[in-house]
């Protein structure tokens, strides 16, 4: 066999291997999800959604879990959104080329690579203990806010960067101050990208388990939270709890809860991708 023939065969083999690899992960995921659907779909009904957890698998529901998730997400957004957008604005509009801003940038890159459980340890000492928030939703929300902050900051910076300098020049030329220019021109134009980032941050937060466990979210919470200072649990932790039980009934519960969690996650990601496409199309100055 000639050299070139051998090479062409190798080329062809790799091509098939490449296609196979590309779909391997996705196919496995589909198998997994199919498995879950088979196990858990039938378990989902109104009772399941509105019942409190219980020692008996058939009676246990995810009410406290998803209401806890809702509380956590709402509070996290409330904290992380203004904080992240402000930080992003500062880095893009005010602090460029100072030594502080290079420090900030390096730091944010580093933070993005810190394992989420470490944020849990941070939250445990600072929010739960030092700030005396206890094992509350508030402590959990603050912890998750710090975790997703880099996501929002990066999204904010990228959107702001996409605003053409000519718009700013026109605004300054008319005598607007820096903040007026940001508030009236830059922010409205970059809102699309910022919102995309926020939604991605929230969909990340909804699936976070480890930091909340460390901060003291409990595995068994027989009541729905009614204030930020209440103890709580969230969907992923409830799933974790059920997965750890040997009874088959709980496995089914876990599968059902996973379906709900995946729906929430994929819907949010879908919205973010849709927003990103819409926003990118709008930027045809």
């Amino acid at each position, binding site marked *: 066999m000639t050299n070139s023939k051998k090479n062409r065969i190798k080329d062809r083999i*790799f*091509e098939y291997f490449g296609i196979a*690899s590309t779909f391997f992960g996705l196919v496995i995921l589909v198998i997994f999800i199919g498995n879950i659907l088979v196990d858990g779909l039938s378990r989902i009904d109104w009772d399941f959604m509105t019942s409190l957890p219980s020692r008996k698998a058939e009676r246990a529901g995810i009410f406290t879990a998803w209401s806890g998730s809702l509380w956590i997400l709402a509070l996290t957004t409330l904290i992380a959104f203004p904080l992240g957008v402000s*930080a992003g604005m500062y880095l893009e509009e005010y602090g460029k080329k100072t030594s502080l801003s290079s420090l900030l940038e390096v730091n944010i890159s580093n933070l993005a*690579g810190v394992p989420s*459980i470490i944020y849990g340890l941070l939250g445990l000492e600072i929010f739960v203990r030092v700030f005396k928030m206890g094992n509350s939703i508030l402590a959990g929300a603050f912890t998750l806010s710090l975790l997703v*902050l880099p996501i929002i900051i990066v999204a904010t910076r990228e959107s702001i960067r996409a605003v053409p300098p000519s718009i700013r020049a026109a605004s300054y030329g008319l005598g607007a101050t820096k903040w007026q220019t940001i508030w009236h021109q830059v922010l409205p134009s970059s809102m699309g990208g910022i919102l995309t980032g926020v939604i991605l941050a929230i969909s990340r937060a909804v699936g976070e388990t480890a930091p909340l466990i460390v901060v003291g979210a409990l595995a068994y919470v027989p009541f729905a939270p009614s204030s930020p200072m209440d103890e709580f649990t969230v969907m992923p932790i409830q799933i*974790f709890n059920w997965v750890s039980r040997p009874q088959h009934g709980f496995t089914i519960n876990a599968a059902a809860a996973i379906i709900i969690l995946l729906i929430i*996650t994929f819907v949010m990601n879908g919205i973010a991708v849709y927003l990103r496409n819409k926003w990118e199309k709008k930027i045809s100055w």
Partner: protein
Amino acid sequence: MTRRNKEKLIEWLLKSSAVVTILTTAGIIWVLLSESYSFFQEVSLLDFLTDTEWTPLFAIKHFGIMPLITGTLLTTFIAVSVALPLGLTIAVYLSEYAPKRFRKIVKPMLEVLAAVPTVVYGFFALMVVTPFLQKLIPGMAGFDALSAGIVMGIMIIPFVSSLSEDALQAVPKSLRNASYGLGSTRFQTAFKVMVPAASSGIIVSVILAFSRAIGETMIVAIAAGQQPRLTANPLVPIETITAYIVQVSLGDVPHGSLEYKTIFAAGMTLFVFTFILNNISFWVRKKFREQYD
């Protein structure tokens, strides 16, 4: 308030928001250091690093971190050995073979793998992969590093494939054209020219995948076990650093006790690992970026 003062106030508020990130890092370092310091008042550093058992929650206490480290590294290596070949193949295929439209559709689909909550992956590992492997490998335990590692690997594929593909795309097209011009196949071009040219970016993606795997918690907490064990055997239960922290957090360990402090010592170890890895990747990126500027 005058216009001038208002502007200054706003700038100050925005700056403070940005500074929160520095406070976060400072906070992490302070928390880990202070509790670890307190821990090391009671346990010697030598014991910590050399003892071969980790049993802080048992009656007879050993505080050797090595079993947790080997558990972590074992699962990580398995994960990277799954993610690296697959991720790199995907990256090469998408960058050098696939038509543009295919790439546009497939790339976001792969990102889905990274978007699935890790607790869901943990469920898969325990409920699907482990029973499946047990059929193939008789005598395999219900909790083990292999299933957890494989599933982690699947989760990390997009990390490797996305970053490697970006690295390949960043190589100037002229190199690719030169190779084809000499009559090379796509395979030869990809592996003899493009991959070496993009090597720094690919290396960065692998380092980051490593870092991600080391810090992963839920998959290993659910499927890898809670038995710290100094072993390289992927078929038996082990415990990772992260799973240990979860284990303690779920229990009733009193605040301030030595057992409580162990999670910070373990956390410190974890942080050191990922910090070093992340900074190596920054350094690699910085040092080799000059190539194409």
